[in-house]
């Protein structure tokens, strides 16, 4: 009882009855909230409750009153719905949010998300840009990296619409995936620019990468001395898979002492930084490092196209089941063999369509 406000604090005249008092009290209490009333205005007289309140509340409809003369009437038009600063802020921020959301909502076609092999990445980026250039109303597909295994698993889990793979399908891959070949690519064995070794035979590569030969002194044509620094790729890489299949063969494994890099560009960077380094990258990543010949054949696009260079592997686009919708359109465009795609693929890769 003592906590409740004393009767003397309610400024009303003596002629008010209990329902009137209740109304006044309620209107006086509720005007504290910034969302219902402006701050420093007291109004008097019963509030006309909203239609919802009248329908759903258990109260009897309150008595409508007008304010005594000289006092501001709660039901007068000017004291109803006075715009509050909070209301204005809400309106402005909602408008901004809708403005930002509108462009994305307005785009009718879905944006494709493509991800996976870092070897396929440069090719896929160029293809996506050309696709958007040719069909401006279709949003440009978003291309990510992450290595081949991640692309394949991503397609199976739905994270990607299309996956990129630079290795052939394996039995351990998830079921129900469809691999569509889009190009062929070469793998070059690279060394630092300070160590431009002219040629490697397959036997030499196998011995170096398996750890049998550990010093540059044992390799003919080496311009640096000291221990060989091996650079491998991590287990999720398709390039590593292709390298193992093509260069190392079935029985040999890459030495566990090798440093495992996470992408083609990291491998390229690592080898360009260390004079005694050797590793393997895809064709598109041979700037700043020396690409050695393999079995007497230069690691070049022409040799790969003619079939002379042995280190060539397939690029695949992976979809869950047969490609559908936007993904089907994109894959069909890439594999159609039209002039745009042919030009792009032939710039650094080998076309198959």
């Amino acid at each position: 009882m003592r906590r409740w406000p004393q009767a003397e604090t309610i400024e009303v005249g003596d002629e008010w009855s209990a329902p009137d008092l209740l109304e006044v009290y309620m209107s006086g209490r509720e005007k504290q909230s910034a969302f219902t009333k402006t701050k420093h205005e007291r109004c008097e007289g019963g509030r006309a409750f909203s239609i919802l309140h009248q329908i759903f509340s258990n109260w009897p409809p309150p008595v409508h009153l007008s304010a005594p003369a000289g006092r501001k009437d709660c039901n007068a038009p000017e004291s109803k719905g006075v715009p509050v600063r909070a209301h204005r802020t809400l309106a402005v921020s909602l408008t901004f949010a809708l403005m930002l959301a509108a462009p994305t909502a307005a785009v009718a076609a879905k944006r494709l998300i493509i991800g996976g092999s870092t070897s396929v990445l440069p090719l896929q980026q160029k293809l996506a840009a050309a696709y958007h250039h040719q069909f401006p109303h279709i949003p440009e597909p978003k291309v990510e990296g992450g290595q081949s295994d991640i692309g394949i698993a991503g397609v199976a889990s739905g994270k990607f619409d299309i996956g990129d793979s630079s290795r052939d399908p394996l039995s351990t891959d998830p079921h129900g995936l469809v691999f569509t070949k889009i190009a062929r690519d070469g793998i070059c064995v690279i060394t630092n620019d300070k160590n431009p070794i002219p040629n490697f035979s397959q036997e030499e590569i196998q011995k170096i990468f398996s750890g049998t030969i550990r010093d540059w002194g044992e390799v003919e044509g080496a311009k640096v001395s000291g221990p060989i620094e091996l650079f491998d790729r991590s287990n999720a890489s398709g390039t590593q898979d292709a390298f193992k299949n093509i260069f190392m063969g079935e029985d040999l494994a890459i030495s566990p002492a090798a440093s495992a890099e996470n992408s083609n560009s990291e491998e390229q960077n690592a080898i360009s930084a260390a004079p005694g380094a050797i590793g393997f990258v895809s064709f598109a990543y041979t700037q700043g490092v020396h690409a050695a010949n393999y079995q007497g054949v230069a690691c070049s696009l022409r040799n790969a196209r003619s079939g002379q260079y042995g280190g060539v592997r397939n690029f695949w686009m992976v979809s869950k089941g047969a490609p559908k919708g936007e993904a089907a359109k994109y894959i069909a465009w890439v594999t159609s063999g039209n002039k745009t795609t042919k030009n792009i693929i032939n710039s650094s890769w080998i076309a198959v369509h």
Partner: protein
Amino acid sequence: MSAEAFPPAVPPAAPPHPREARRQRHAAQLTAHRKEAARDRRVEFALGTLAAGTLALIAAMLVTVLVNGWPSFEANGLGWFGNSGDPVLQFRAMQVGTALPGHPLLYFSAWPLIWGTLLCTIGAVVIALVVSTLAAIFITEFAPLPVRRVLEPVVRLLAGVPSVIYGLVGLLLLAPWVNSLISIPRKESVQYVVQLSGEGLLTATLVLTVMILPIMIALISGALAAVPATWREGSVALGVNRWRTIWRVSVRAARPAIVSATVLGTARALGEAIMLAMIGGGRPWAPNPLDGLTFLFEPIQPLAASIVKEFGDNPNTPIGHTVYAIAALLLFSAALLSLAGWAVRQPLKRYGIGI
């Protein structure tokens, strides 16, 4: 709808007895009070649901990780924490599906990962603790006001930089420089065992230190600034010189905050995955301190970086079980860290500025 239409207007009745009026006034207040109480209960229920939902999410995460990682612990027993094999070969065996001779497919010995994590985390935290305490003392006590006004926002800005940036800077700038420090004879001395390069324990620890410094500086300088001026003034009034006052009064009072900052920094260092995957060296190896200076250049692959590198998103494959087991270990160490931080802070809170 017009104000007059509904409800119908009723003119005010005759004034009642004052006692009656008072009773009715109190009834009105009671109803209003009850309405407010009901609203409070509804809000409490809504907020409680949100909090319980967060807890349920964390519990679900914990249970998922433990359940999916259990097969790896079961197959290896306590040998999971041992050093009986090379994790590179073990990961490869799990990836390909061919078990190593004489071992099950889930065979795994995580000691190189655990040791690498311990080394780089403890190293980074110790260096960061010293540097951040001194930097915080400088910012709060010695820096002139213009310098302080620049330093504080800059430190907070650095705390928000994504860790991949640090990794990139470390890879492109620090690693080649560290590589130039390693002489060829040193590389040759261990060439049949491990490959030394610019990416190794030293680079990883240094970049990790730089990464956890800003948050620690921000926390400790905040706590130092909150030390009551009366305490410092009292100390100076007793004749204690400036540095001693700072060290014996301010820093001593900020000890709970320093412990909190250390715990936060350690947690961040423990969880750092992508950056350490880039500059750790790419090989899970347990550096041997008895190697002397070579120890600093040996590669490491901490626990979180291993989760990033060994892609095990399918929890039904052997590599998935192993990765989830590593995650379970990380969660457990994070919980242990939290507990340790709380336990260390308890006795310090009596005379300190807690946060």
